[in-house]
């Protein structure tokens, strides 16, 4: 029994931790989908840009400056992408805005290649959360323990914001009906911007946690966690925040269980096989509503 626990505890911890990181990214996908019915393909790249900003900022600045700077820059990037690439297409067919999102994704990736030269770089060691701790028989980084707690705190705060504030009410209204929301005097574009700002903020936090664990940063290193977070959002029911969070934890833990079984090679394959299975058997995911086309 003891052997079993000591053999598997690290995997479980890693699963919960990476699940939390996926959750922070997945919320950005699911919120944007909820309001614009758009899969924001650039979201994973915004997550990667956050890592580079942190990396460069930490090289010359103390943490108390580099951390808020990273968050501010990422939030601005999310906002700017929406204004530049999605807002002008507000009345265009859904396909056009999706292609625009794919374009932004490649643009950001190529900019990162161009600026960084493309070699893998070492993510800075953040004080405290990068330090090692031992729990029972497992040794891990502090970030493993911090991630799920911080994720849950942020999710609870977000749900409160959406359910109990004026801007949250506006977000729920806009997600159902653009035109009637306008008739209430709501400025649709401001509400959409807030959505991107929240999504990018959470991606920036997720990026710090994720890269404290997997320290090599390349222009494409956000692609895989981004895709998995997307799968998590679909699994949970795209548009649903609790769904995205639960989906992300399930995927994070399941991946690591597979690793614990000695099938590490297949852990990524599992996630995408799961996506195919969901799309076949329950396309609306765990908590998703059936899709009604907006009139």
């Amino acid at each position, binding site marked *: 029994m003891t052997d079993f626990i000591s053999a598997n505890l690290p995997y479980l911890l890693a699963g919960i931790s990476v699940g939390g990181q996926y959750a922070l990214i997945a919320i950005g996908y699911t919120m944007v989908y909820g309001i614009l019915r758009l899969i924001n393909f650039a979201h994973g790249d915004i997550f990667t840009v956050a890592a580079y900003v942190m990396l460069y900022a930490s090289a010359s600045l103390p943490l108390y400056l580099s951390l808020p700077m990273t968050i501010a820059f990422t939030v601005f990037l999310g906002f700017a992408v929406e204004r530049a690439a999605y807002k002008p297409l507000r009345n265009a067919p859904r396909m056009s805005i999706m292609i625009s999102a794919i374009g932004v994704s490649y643009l950001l990736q190529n900019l990162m290649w161009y600026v960084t030269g493309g070699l893998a770089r070492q993510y800075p060691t953040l004080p405290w959360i990068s330090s090692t701790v031992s729990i029972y028989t497992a040794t891990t980084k502090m970030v493993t323990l911090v991630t799920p707690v911080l994720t849950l705190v942020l999710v609870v705060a977000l749900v409160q914001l959406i359910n109990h504030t*004026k801007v949250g*009410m*506006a977000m*729920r*209204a806009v*997600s*159902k*009906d653009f*035109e*009637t929301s*306008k*008739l*209430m*005097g*709501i*400025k649709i574009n401001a509400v959409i911007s807030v959505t991107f700002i929240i999504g990018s903020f959470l991606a920036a936090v997720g990026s710090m946690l994720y890269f404290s664990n997997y320290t090599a940063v390349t222009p494409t290193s956000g692609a895989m966690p981004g895709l998995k977070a997307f799968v998590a959002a679909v699994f949970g029911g795209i548009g649903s925040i609790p769904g995205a969070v639960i989906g992300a934890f399930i995927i994070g833990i399941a991946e690591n269980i597979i690793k614990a079984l000695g099938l590490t090679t297949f852990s990524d394959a599992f996630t995408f096989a799961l996506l195919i299975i969901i799309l076949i058997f329950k396309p609306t995911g765990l908590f998703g509503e059936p899709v009604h086309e907006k009139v």
Partner: protein
Amino acid sequence: MSLLTVSNLQVSYGGIEALKTISFEVEKGQIVTLIGANGAGKSTTLRAISGLVPIKGGGITFDGRDITALDTSRIVSEGIVLVPEGRRVFPNLSVLENLKIGAFLRKDHAEVNAAIDYVYERFPRLKERHWQMAGTLSGGEQQMLAVGRALMARPKLLMMDEPSLGLAPLVVRDIFSIIHRLRDEGITILLIEQNANAALRAADYGYVLETGRITMEGAGQQLLNDQRVRDAYLGQARKRGAVRHCNDVD
């Protein structure tokens, strides 16, 4: 002086002229109705006034100010509120939240709460169901919520797009008596209806809209008695006596 003046308004959708220069006025404190067949441009007119569709030509003046180029949010804050066709309550918001969101542009909490009481007083049913998701209300209750939500913005001009559509006759009667009461309380009303009979009975003044043009105007009663109007818009109601009977308002 008229509260709303629409002059030579033109609206096109994808090359089709939905409104070919229409002009009309809405007097303060009156119920004014636009009647016309499906596709005549009634909804388009209201949507253009609210700033939901781009205006190609002409102008709209409200309370002495030119509002032609304003966005919807500004138009709402000027005091023009539209109750859209099909009610369009937010199904995922509670009844109370639907009312609160109607007052989105109002900052004063005390005033907003007073407005909620004002709406509850007129629609006690909404108070009973304030916690319920609006999507679970019946059609009539949703229409009352849509009107209540519009009143939360404290409109000077309340525009209603087909408020009786799809409702049971008794509920339609309720809706029209509410419209009267609102007028008596000083709210100017611009009403569009396919149910021309009920609309003209309720209205102080009416305009007839035909394929993007205004072809006739006059006092409600006068239009109601006009032979051309009777033939074109009230014919159905005459043949189906039951309908007219059910929609009687007084």
